[in-house]
């Protein structure tokens, strides 16, 4: 047998049931269009309306009278085909292939009544697909669809601003260390980050509030209590506060780190200089007379504790960063930020410093740096500049060479 409108459209029982429920036993009528909304729903139950399809009934007196015509059914068929074709060009169609339980799902809603077109964002497309005129009335099919599909970040109220950075994050000159105490408390959120002591600084770093929220606790008072109170109000922030050191990191360290995990370099492994240094020296490399730049120290530090005898300085030894240091160490500037880490030999008895395992471990740690690391990148770069100049000077020779290749081509077999 043949299907309605002679089109092989698959009927889905769930959709039929939902539609019946949405219609509530009525049919579309003048003033009560049939509306189908296509929505996007995130796992956080946020919804975004993507498309609104409407079948509006216009009063027959609004349209010119038309004879009863067998082609009404045919016209409806054509309109239905147009509907099918147009559903493939909307942005939601492509989006629907990417849905998943953990990203978003596409939902629909069917009802009779006036839709709200304002929820389609900026510059939606409004298209009229067509109409079918009957003696009773005229049916008009339209679609409005959203063009800007931006998924909102996970649901946060305005007080929970998504950006957890201090406003002077990238500007050391406006950091609390530079503009000290007593600054205005209520007026400017930025400057409300000024701390009366460093520990509060650290806590505030992770709980900065957006500038356009003048009623946050911070702006009212800048005392310790406000900080704590603020933390209490946002329990999830407590976690980040907990990871902050008692000794706050310097503002420089929070520049866009060029070195991965560079903030680990200043982690609070502040172990005072020990007699261990003598031991390290003993196992130290045969390059004790290297220049005392931070770079060398790091390269040595990765290998295992170049402690120069005259140190009051501290050296970082963080095993995980060993691989990065030799290439990026040139960027580290401040020697005094390095702390010496006492790395105990794993699985060895702590008191048994003279054991084979311990000695072997320390030997491996203090392996000499590769000779290639002795050449700094700067030298290579300056070499390159010279090389380029040389090449440019002999550019005519190169052109001749290339031309000589061309001159061979007539003789080459085809």
């Amino acid at each position, binding site marked *: 047998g043949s299907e309605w409108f*002679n089109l*092989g459209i698959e009927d889905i029982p769930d959709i039929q049931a939902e539609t019946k429920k949405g219609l509530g036993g009525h049919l579309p009528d003048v003033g009560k269009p049939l509306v189908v909304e296509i929505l996007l729903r995130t796992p956080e139950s946020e919804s975004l309306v993507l498309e609104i399809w409407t079948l509006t009934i216009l009063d027959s007196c609004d349209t010119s009278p038309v004879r009863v015509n067998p*082609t009404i059914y045919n016209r409806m068929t*054509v309109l239905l085909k147009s509907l099918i*074709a*147009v559903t*493939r*060009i909307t942005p939601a*169609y492509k989006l629907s292939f990417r849905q998943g339980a953990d990203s978003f799902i596409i939902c629909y809603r069917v009802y009779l009544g006036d839709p709200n077109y304002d929820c389609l964002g900026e510059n939606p497309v409004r298209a009229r*697909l067509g109409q079918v005129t009957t003696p009773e009335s005229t049916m008009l099919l339209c679609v409005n669809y959203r063009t800007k599909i931006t998924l909102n970040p996970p649901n946060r109220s305005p007080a929970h601003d998504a950006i957890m950075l201090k406003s002077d994050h990238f500007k050391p000159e406006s950091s609390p260390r530079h503009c000290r105490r007593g600054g205005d408390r209520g007026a400017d959120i930025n400057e409300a980050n000024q701390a009366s002591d460093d520990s509060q600084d650290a806590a505030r770093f992770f709980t900065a509030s957006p500038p356009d929220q003048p009623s946050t606790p911070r702006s009212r008072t800048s005392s310790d209590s406000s900080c704590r109170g603020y933390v209490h109000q946002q329990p999830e922030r407590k976690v980040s506060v907990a990871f902050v050191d008692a000794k706050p990191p310097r503002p420089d360290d929070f520049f866009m780190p060029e070195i991965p995990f560079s903030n680990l370099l200043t982690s609070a492994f502040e172990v005072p200089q020990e007699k261990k240094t003598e031991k390290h020296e003993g196992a130290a490399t045969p390059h004790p007379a290297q220049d005392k730049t931070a770079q060398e120290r790091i390269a040595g530090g990765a290998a295992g504790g170049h402690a120069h005898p005259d140190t009051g300085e501290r050296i970082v030894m963080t095993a995980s960063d060993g691989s990065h240091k030799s290439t990026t160490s040139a960027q580290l500037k401040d020697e005094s930020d390095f702390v010496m880490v006492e790395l105990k030999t794993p699985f060895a008895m702590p008191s048994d410093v003279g054991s084979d395992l311990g000695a072997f471990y320390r030997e491996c740690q203090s392996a000499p740096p590769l000779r290639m690391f002795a050449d700094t990148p700067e030298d290579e770069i300056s070499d390159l500049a010279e090389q380029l100049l040389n090449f440019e000077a002999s550019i005519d020779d190169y052109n001749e060479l290339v031309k000589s290749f061309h001159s061979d081509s007539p003789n080459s077999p085809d």
Partner: protein
Amino acid sequence: MNANTQVLELEVEGRQVDEAVLSLFHTLLFHRSTGKFHYKNDDTYAVGTIGFQDVDCDFIDFTYVRCSSEELDRSIRREVSGFCEAIRAPDAPPSGQVALEFYQRKRGRWPFASESIPWEVWTLRVNVVSLNNEHERQIWREKVGESLGERLLHITDTLNRHDYIPSPPNQAELDLIYDTAFRDVQPFLFKVNYSVAAPNNPSATTTIKRLIRDTLALT
């Protein structure tokens, strides 16, 4: 009778010509096809069902719907590929036009042959651009996809507005309105014409040729 003529402009890259023209022609044929008529007697008939399927373009960010009839697909592709080859030939001008024409046949009295009278003509004016790098191609993928979407909305608006469609015939006159050559679908009689001469100056010879050819058409 005047045919309803519509002209659509398209600007595409060489590789996109085929898919762009096919997408719009398939959309038109989808709207202008029905299932096969099965006559019970001379006047009453049952209409078969047609299926449809999505086609995703390879070179354009676009998806269109076509009838699920392989024969119809092959037939239209054959016609369109002639145009594509002509317009992409190395010495061809960068623009041309291809038209999908729906027509009716009128039986001619002897000695005159039957005439073809178009009742709807869709002309696509295609300009081919050449692109230099992958970045531009990516931009054109999206751009052509959007412009095809706009053309599609224009097509659906026109198809649902224009009044004239040939009335359903009796069995004897079916062939004068519908193309009954396909086994699983019955579109209105259609043909594809194209030219890659500059559209503003159609050459006199092609016009005369076409005139003579149409007049002398035997079927």
